[in-house]
């Protein structure tokens, strides 16, 4: 609250300027407003009691007691640039009176969450305050924001990016990650070096040749816990990893129509907690484990055709800026993550394709019933455009997209009594997920096009439903088929109809879904959609998840209103997920930029 008051006091003079009428003042105001940019986003929900789903409940018991049905998450970002090279900025976040359902409970009230000063010219880019950053593909370090998931692990501290020449890129940073409105106890520091060799020497046949090396360190003090049942038993802190040193190397090469991107990371030794199934999780004494990751992407593309393959092996690559966030079940919201190891699968567009989703298994667990050391797998993507004028291409062309992904546990053997394990290098363990899908897009005429989609998938059941793996759990196999057609009418109007079906023998059995969308013009669009779990064995659970709504878009502003019932389960953006309970209600979203 105090911080908000401060912001308002700071901003009041600016507001009052806009009231002034003098010509001279006006120039000044215009100047000021020209240099001020920002954006505002607000997502309001009114949760209602549902005759079928029951009374509105918050899974957080403390919040449930407050019985708040109307909740608004809002974000205001302001940036002001001055003296050619400087920018100051801030972000204020507001979760009033409570955060939306299944957001991190530490997001409460209105707070100044991010602030920074930046200097930027051709060679130097210096930030003091909060900043976002990514080294390589983020295997060691990525600070980013994903509002839909409630994630913002911006680092508060300082960063210098220096580009002395066009082939050298150097970044140094220090700070603490944001965790909700707080910051991590652990200190994070990093160095990243990029070398663009193609700019230095002329290598025949190569169009890209980049080398990268990074270092990420995390330091956090450790106070040995006292064993309450045996106070004389002191925690042996010899070799305790207060400082974790991690390194990554990358190499990107393009030659002719081929490209290769590769990255190898080594994460320094870190602690591990004992399993929650053995009582209160404790740090395993004297046993510290390092991790590593291999990421390799290669592809071949020519006009009208593209194919790429990605392989990734993750072993013990979970990394948080606070040690205690590693504790089993203590961090369901994925806060304070230092690196980024998302699920490398295709993000599907149809609602039935978003029921069974894979989450990357990067962590190490040495448990009493078995263990888990990481994941191994990959995916292929294929894009092809049938030539216009050919039999399949027709007058307007036909496009085919295919994607295949396969992920399994990294094969490893565990010695529970000694708290140790041995992982295989390239051996696939138990299958966790497989997805094969095709999409055919056909344009029949200038105003009429259709899409046909098919997907076959298999997934470890507990992983799909709870987001965590259970050994040898039942596998869910499903087939999804979807078809849609879009008809362009005159004056910017159009209509789109979509039908989809999911069939499976497992879990909740079959689903059917449909969507009808009408675009009145560039500004107004309306839709009505429903997915129906008609195959459910229990008649009471044969539920319709219906939704209808509309949106208005003009310039940088968009307002949308939606009423309906949301299916509960994993909700994922960019391969990162949170679990959302079923709920019904009215949603109002407002976004603008200025």
């Amino acid at each position, binding site marked *: 609250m105090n911080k908000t008051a401060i912001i*308002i006091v700071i*901003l009041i003079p600016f*507001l009052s300027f806009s009231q002034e009428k003098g010509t001279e003042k006006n120039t000044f105001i215009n100047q000021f*407003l*020209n240099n001020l*940019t*920002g*954006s*505002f986003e*607000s997502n309001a929900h009114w949760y209602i009691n549902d005759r079928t789903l029951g009374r509105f409940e918050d899974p957080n018991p403390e919040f449930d007691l407050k019985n708040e049905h109307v909740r608004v998450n*809002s974000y*205001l*970002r*302001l940036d002001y640039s001055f003296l050619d090279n400087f920018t100051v900025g801030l972000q*204020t976040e507001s979760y009033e*009176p409570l955060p939306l359902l299944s957001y991190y409970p530490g997001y409460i*009230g209105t707070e100044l969450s991010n602030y920074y000063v930046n200097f*930027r010219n051709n060679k130097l*880019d210096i930030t003091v305050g909060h900043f*976002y*950053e990514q080294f390589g593909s*983020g295997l060691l370090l990525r600070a980013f*924001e994903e509002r839909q998931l409630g994630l913002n692990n911006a680092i508060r501290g300082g960063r210098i990016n220096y580009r002395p020449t*066009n082939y050298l890129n150097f970044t140094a940073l220090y700070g603490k990650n944001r965790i909700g409105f707080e910051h991590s106890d652990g200190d994070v520091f990093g160095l990243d070096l990029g070398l*663009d060799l*193609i700019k230095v020497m002329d290598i025949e046949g190569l169009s*890209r040749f*980049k080398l990268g090396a990074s270092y990420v360190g995390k330091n956090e003090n450790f106070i040995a816990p006292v064993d309450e049942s045996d106070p004389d038993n002191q925690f042996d802190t010899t070799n305790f990893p207060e400082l974790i040193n991690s390194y990554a190397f990358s190499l990107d090469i393009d030659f002719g129509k081929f490209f290769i991107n590769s990255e190898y990371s080594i994460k320094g030794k870190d602690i591990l907690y004992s399993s929650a199934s053995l009582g209160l999780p404790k740090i395993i004494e004297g046993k510290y484990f390092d991790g590593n990751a291999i990421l390799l*992407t290669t592809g*071949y*593309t*020519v*006009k*009208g055709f593209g194919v*790429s393959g*990605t392989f990734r092996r993750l072993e013990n690559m979970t990394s948080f800026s606070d040690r205690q966030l590693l504790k089993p079940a203590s961090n369901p919201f994925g806060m304070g993550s230092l690196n*980024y190891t*998302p*699920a*490398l699968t295709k*993000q599907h567009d149809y609602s039935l394709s978003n029921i069974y989703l894979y989450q990357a298994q990067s962590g190490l667990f040495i448990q009493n019933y078995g263990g888990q050391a990481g994941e191994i797998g990959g995916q292929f*993507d*294929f*894009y092809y455009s049938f030539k216009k004028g050919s039999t399949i291409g027709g007058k307007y062309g036909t*496009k085919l997209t295919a994607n295949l992904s396969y992920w399994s546990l990294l094969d490893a053997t565990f010695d529970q009594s000694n708290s140790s394990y041995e992982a295989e290098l390239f051996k696939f363990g138990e299958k966790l997920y497989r997805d094969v899908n095709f999409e055919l897009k056909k344009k029949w005429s200038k105003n009429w096009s259709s899409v046909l989609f098919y997907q076959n998938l298999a997934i470890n059941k507990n992983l799909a439903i709870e987001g965590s793996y259970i050994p040898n759990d039942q596998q869910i196999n499903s087939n999804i088929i979807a078809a849609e057609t*879009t008809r362009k009418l005159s004056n*910017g109007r*159009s209509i789109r109809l979509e039908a989809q079906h999911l069939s499976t023998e497992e879990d909740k059995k079959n689903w059917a879904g449909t969507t009808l969308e009408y*675009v009145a013009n*560039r500004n107004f669009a309306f839709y009505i959609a429903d997915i129906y779990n008609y195959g459910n064995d229990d008649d009471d659970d044969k539920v319709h998840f219906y939704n209808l709504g509309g*949106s208005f878009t003009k*310039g*940088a502003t*968009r307002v949308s209103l939606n009423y309906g019932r949301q299916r509960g389960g994993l909700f994922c953006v*960019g*391969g990162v997920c949170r679990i959302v309970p079923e709920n019904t209600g009215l949603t109002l979203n407002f*976004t*603008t*930029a*200025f």
Partner: protein
Amino acid sequence: MKNFFYLLALIISFNLSAQENLPTSKIETLDGTTTTLQEISEKNDLFVVSLWATWCVPCKNELDAINDVYPDWQEETNVKVFAISVDDSRTVSRVKPLINGKAWEFTILLDTNNDLKRELGAATVPLTLIIKKGQVVYRHSGYTPGAEDALFEEIKKHN
């Protein structure tokens, strides 16, 4: 709740101004060279920027639709389209095969950690801008079938 209304009041008072200066966030070309919208604007008087992602269906629909009429656009106005992907490290490897598979003719750029997206205040993609002589003269978010025709009308206004 009261704080929320303060915020709202703030927005309304600021929303009267429009963004004119171009962002300075660094973006990458497909061969790894760094550039900015400012640099692009020094070489191009009038151009279109589309923020898109490989996982965003309306974005791909928009760029497919523009690609179909792109030769006509260029013939008539000489306008160039820069399609800037906001794909993060999870999906950025799809960009190259996808743009070739779709045979798009645009200049493709990458904004992998979304610095530009944030600087533009783009809550969602697609976001389409027309930039003339270093200033944003038109901005639209979202894509609906046929919006490419309206976009071209705007381009012609500024040509």
